[in-house]
């Protein structure tokens, strides 16, 4: 029991540090990708190829004035960014990062908690994510922040529906809510994306909306709302908001890879004849590569598409994605039924 607790603690710290470092470097990669897509070079002054830029940004954020509007609700004002950051870090708990590893004859799982309702857990956490933004926007006592927060909450609530409806098809197919089961059913190249391309498309679009990324970045919407919900924030509180966006990106990439792209599975790596631990490591790298690819897609889309107008956003969510998702559920149900009746 003691060794398991120790292992879980280490794993949790590793995953936490990993997602923080990835989020840190996502900011650099984002700016690099932005630069390259716009025929520029991006930041390259801090260290070779700008590798220390995230450090410089972090130090800058720490040394900025800790500003608080005097009409703000002090408690909620601090709670907002803390909650956002906490929620962003929580989601990674149910993601299976790789197959089991064996140390001294004992088997350890590369998943923090194999909850049998893993998908529900993710949805629960993502829904709480709205509160961080909502509380922050409300507590700032600023009309732009409030408008941004209202937009964020209505946007996230609307797109959660379509998102969960898209996931229901995966649950229907696999018959389990556990992330580990869903991954293990996608051995080799038997990925869910081949069966559920529409669900993936809906999920992808909703993931953009849930992480408040362009083209759905209305909550921060610089051109209309100054900074949106974080207008009144400065220093590391602002840093938390910006940072959690990148953690969310990383985690949603992980969720997409897990649910649709076979998680840590890849054709033929199980035929390489690697030892258990090496195999686990390679599998983890595969998952990581998939996540990186999704991260790149997030950035790629951001620098391609302009921002939606608010009514367009709502129309897309309620009138296009939700009916499509329901249709997808229906079709999946019919196909499953027909398959069952076939002898």
């Amino acid at each position, binding site marked *: 029991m003691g060794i398991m607790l120790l292992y879980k603690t280490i794993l949790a710290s590793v995953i936490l540090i990993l997602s923080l470092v990835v989020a840190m470097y996502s900011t650099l990669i984002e700016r690099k*990708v932005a*630069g390259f*897509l716009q*025929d*520029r*070079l991006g930041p390259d002054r801090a260290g070779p190829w700008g590798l220390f830029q995230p450090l410089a940004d972090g130090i800058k954020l720490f040394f900025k004035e800790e500003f608080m509007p005097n009409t703000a609700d002090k408690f909620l004002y601090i709670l907002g960014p803390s909650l956002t950051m906490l929620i962003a870090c929580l989601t990674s708990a149910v993601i299976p990062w790789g197959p089991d590893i064996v140390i001294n004859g004992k088997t350890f799982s590369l998943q923090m908690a194999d909850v049998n309702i893993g998908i529900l857990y993710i949805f629960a956490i993502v829904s709480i994510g709205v509160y961080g933004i909502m509380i922050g926007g409300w507590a700032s006592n600023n009309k732009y922040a409030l408008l941004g927060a209202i937009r964020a909450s209505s946007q996230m609530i609307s797109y959660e529906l379509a998102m969960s409806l898209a996931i229901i098809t995966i649950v229907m197919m696999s018959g389990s809510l556990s992330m580990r089961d869903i991954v293990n059913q996608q051995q080799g190249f038997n990925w869910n994306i081949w069966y559920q391309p529409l669900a993936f498309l809906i999920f992808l679009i909703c993931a953009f909306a849930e992480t408040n990324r362009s083209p759905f970045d209305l909550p921060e919407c610089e051109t209309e709302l100054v900074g949106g919900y974080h207008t009144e924030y400065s220093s590391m509180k602002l840093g938390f908001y910006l940072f959690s966006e990148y953690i969310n990106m990383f985690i949603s990439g992980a969720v997409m890879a897990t649910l649709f792209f076979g998680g840590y599975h890849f054709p033929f790596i199980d035929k390489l004849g690697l030892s258990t631990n090496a195999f686990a490591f390679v599998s983890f790298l595969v998952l990581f590569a998939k996540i990186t690819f999704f991260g790149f897609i997030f950035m790629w889309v951001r620098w*391609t*598409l302009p921002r939606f107008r608010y009514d367009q956003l709502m129309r897309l969510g309620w009138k296009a994605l939700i009916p499509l998702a329901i249709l997808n559920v229906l079709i999946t149900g019919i196909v499953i039924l027909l398959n069952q009746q076939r002898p």
Partner: protein
Amino acid sequence: MIGLTKRSKVVSNKQMSFWEKIYLPAILHGMWITIGHLFTKKATIRYPEVKREFSEIYRGKHVLKRDDEGRERCTACGLCAVACPAEAITMIAAERLPGEENLYREEKYASTYEIDMLRCIFCGLCEEACPKEAIFLTKEIVKADYERDKFVYGKDVLVEPMDPSKRIDISKRQTPEVLEFKKDTNQKHNVH
């Protein structure tokens, strides 16, 4: 009727087809375009290490030339100031005293010569007007500063140094065509 621009398009209100309505092909096409830019040559010049190449006849900060014996060529005739469209040049003329023959080429010289670099538009007309080949524009840039009065450049900045090794090469601006043109006495300003 001649259009104002060749790019003008006739606007139509035709209904979008199904493929246009779902936007996805258009989005993919847009993403195809942006990914193409990932591999294009970048326009950025890494400034302090790499510098953009200037034209040989770049029109930058002015220089007041000395002749081969180190004497100032300017005679304070004021033609440059007259030619200047931005009225950036002012000067005060003075008479050369005995014993100053090694400093000034002719009997008259400019005791002060100021160019307001904030007014100057670097057109090069002063250089064209000068009958004495005294003022030229160089490849040097007028540096930025915090105060406006620092931009009024006097003789201390403009006159080229005595030291032969620090002389400023303006031969590129004296193209054969320019030299030939300056010999043309039909042009009023070339008569001297």
